[in-house]
């Protein structure tokens, strides 16, 4: 379409040129008028990524105010990729397959990329910290548990301080059902509004999200009639709120059949990485808008044609 089908920005980096080289310091935020916003945007025509767009092909609104796009970057920026895998009892269907999959992750990464692996069940575990993408990715110790600390795992990843010259992509393989985190889904969403990372959720397609089907899944998968009876966010649309957190960041949910039942994670991961590398980063300096609070974003493609644009919904700046 001419414009936006669904606004989504793939990564938002709050940065400023004066601080861009400072890797160890607090990431630059909206502290002065010279601050710049980096907005990741993925554009598709049908199922095909569109990767020949220029600054003049985009229109961007911040709080409803049209902004001037100063620069555009494409897929050359190295990635920090955080993989999150649900190994709670409900999801840890095939750990041997998972280990083999992790061994194959380096084949999907570029030399300048880095990868980190988190696993979670009752709590979050860092299987290995960020390491060069080309290094062997090995899972030595994997402890499964009875519950799923989804919120804590996602929040832990999203709060990682990415370096200014890199992009942070978080890909979580989970059913999205939390039943033990101390963090609420609302806090997860608050973090999603502030993180520069982009979150994608890969969810089993046979797990449709109503509590009735959760119950069915429990019966067929591992014999518990009430797998999520206690502690889960007691809201029928609860998981939608987790997916919403991903969409706030410019990510989305991906439904995959057979996930946790032998289906490799490498297929969806490859697709997500490929799409992300072919996305754009738009840079602008906000003008005409109040500095603090939630900034709602809208991105459109002005070139003639029908495009599906996915971009972050907005970003949050502390008022101080």
């Amino acid at each position, binding site marked *: 379409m001419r414009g936006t089908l669904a606004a989504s920005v793939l990564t938002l980096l709050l940065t400023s040129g004066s601080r861009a080289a400072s890797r160890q310091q607090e990431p630059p*935020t909206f502290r002065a008028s010279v601050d710049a916003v980096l907005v990741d945007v993925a554009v598709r025509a049908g199922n095909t990524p569109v990767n020949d767009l220029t600054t003049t092909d985009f229109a961007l609104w911040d709080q409803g105010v049209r902004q001037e796009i100063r620069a555009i970057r494409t897929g050359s920026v190295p990635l920090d990729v955080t993989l999150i895998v649900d190994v709670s009892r409900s999801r840890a269907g095939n750990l041997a397959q998972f280990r083999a999959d992790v061994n194959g992750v380096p084949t999907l990464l570029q030399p300048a990329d880095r990868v980190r692996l988190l696993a979670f069940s009752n709590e979050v575990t860092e299987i290995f910290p960020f390491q060069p993408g080309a290094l062997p990715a090995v899972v030595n110790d994997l402890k499964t548990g009875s519950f799923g600390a989804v919120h804590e795992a996602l929040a832990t990843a999203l*709060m990682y301080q990415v370096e200014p010259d890199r992009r942070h992509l978080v890909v979580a393989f989970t059913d999205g059902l939390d039943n033990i985190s101390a963090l609420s889904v609302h806090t997860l969403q608050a973090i999603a509004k502030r993180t520069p990372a982009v979150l994608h959720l890969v969810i089993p397609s046979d797990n449709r999200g109503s509590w009735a089907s*959760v119950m069915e899944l429990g019966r067929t998968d591992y014999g518990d009639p009430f797998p999520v009876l206690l502690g889960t966010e007691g809201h029928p649309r609860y998981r939608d709120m987790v997916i919403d957190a991903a969409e706030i960041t410019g990510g989305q949910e991906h439904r995959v059949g057979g996930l946790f039942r032998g289906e490799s994670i490498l297929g969806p991961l490859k697709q997500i990485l490929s799409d992300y590398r072919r996305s754009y980063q738009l840079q602008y300096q906000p003008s005409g808008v109040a500095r603090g609070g939630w900034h709602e974003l809208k991105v459109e493609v002005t070139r003639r044609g029908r495009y599906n644009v996915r971009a972050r919904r907005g970003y949050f700046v502390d008022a101080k």
Partner: protein
Amino acid sequence: MAGDASRRLAVFAIVTCVFAIGGRTPGAQQTSDPIVGVLDGYAEGRYDDALARLRTLGSARVIRDRLRDQGQRWIASADPARRERRLEIAAIVALEAAHIGFAAAGQPGVPYGTKNLQQLFDTRQLLEVGCAWVRQGTASEFERVWLLASVALQQSVQNHYRVYTEIRFSDNRTVNPEVPFRDVMPQYSLWMQNADLQEWDLAHWGHATSRFPDEPRFALAKILARPEVRRLPNRPGTAAMFMTQGFGSSEFDRLPELEKLAASVVRQTFVDLGRFLDRPGVSAEANLRRGILQFHQARLVDSLDSLRAATKEADRDIAYLAHLYAGLALDGLNRRSEAVDAFEAALRVVPDARSAVVALAADLFQLDRRAEASARLAAAFARPAPDDPWRRFSLGDYRFWPDYLNRLREAARS
């Protein structure tokens, strides 16, 4: 802790006679029975070896039957001076077997599948075998600790069913179990009819409280069994909402009814907890539970008052949870800087506990102290995760199980 051995043995003699009349011969011990090897090994302090052998004996039902029969004979076959100790050993082995049995049906605290129902029920009866042994004679310290340990195991597996019938409201109403069990939760109905778990729990509490009416932890256990109190404490919300999980949209029509029921239970629970707020030994836990209930009712300021009363508790789980909840309540009041202090206090109690580390980082992140948030997470994840009291919140007194077991073993050795 040895207690009143002579009176206990007098009762035991009667029990032995009953066995003899029934055609069983306590004195004719069959040393070839593997349970005897387990008991002998345990009596000699070879715990790991004994437990390894115990795990090979079969299902909880098999072990229950062997303990009840051969264990009884093993006790009776000793000379009178040694019978008391053998009885204690056999009772501890019953506990150990129950612990193994629950683990075989699922991890403690994990919902059980129907396929494990029989295992769960048989394991309960294993505890009952031991309970019948320790309740002989005059109440002793050994018996008190044994019952505390058994209640701890009992609480560890209460996550998946509801214990309602014991609740009597101030106006003499009682909870109608038909609502949660029969109509809204047909599977539970089947479960309860088959396993009789609720009745077993109530009967066991009855044993404990009748023997030790002044032990507040037994009375508190009844309150903590209520699902509104036991549910994993994610966040404020209506107490009944979690009941809807696993059901289709038609069941949501029952929500008002369930809400009403749950609200009644919560109101009564406040009244019941009030009796324990100043009781030595359980006051901190009672205050913590009250604070959590208030938190879930979004009475955040009230919650803070209750939680502060619990933060000075020596029990690290209680102190940690009181600080953690205070942080969550302060977050709810948008007093984020104070929440940071509360989470820091929790981490002084249990360093690197994941629940507080992530909650702390989330506040720092939202306070725009992002580098600090990231660094705190990185530092914590670089170290092994400690046992997090948050994760075992719903398991109740199960956190005391290792201590109780050690005390029982020590008593049986002396």
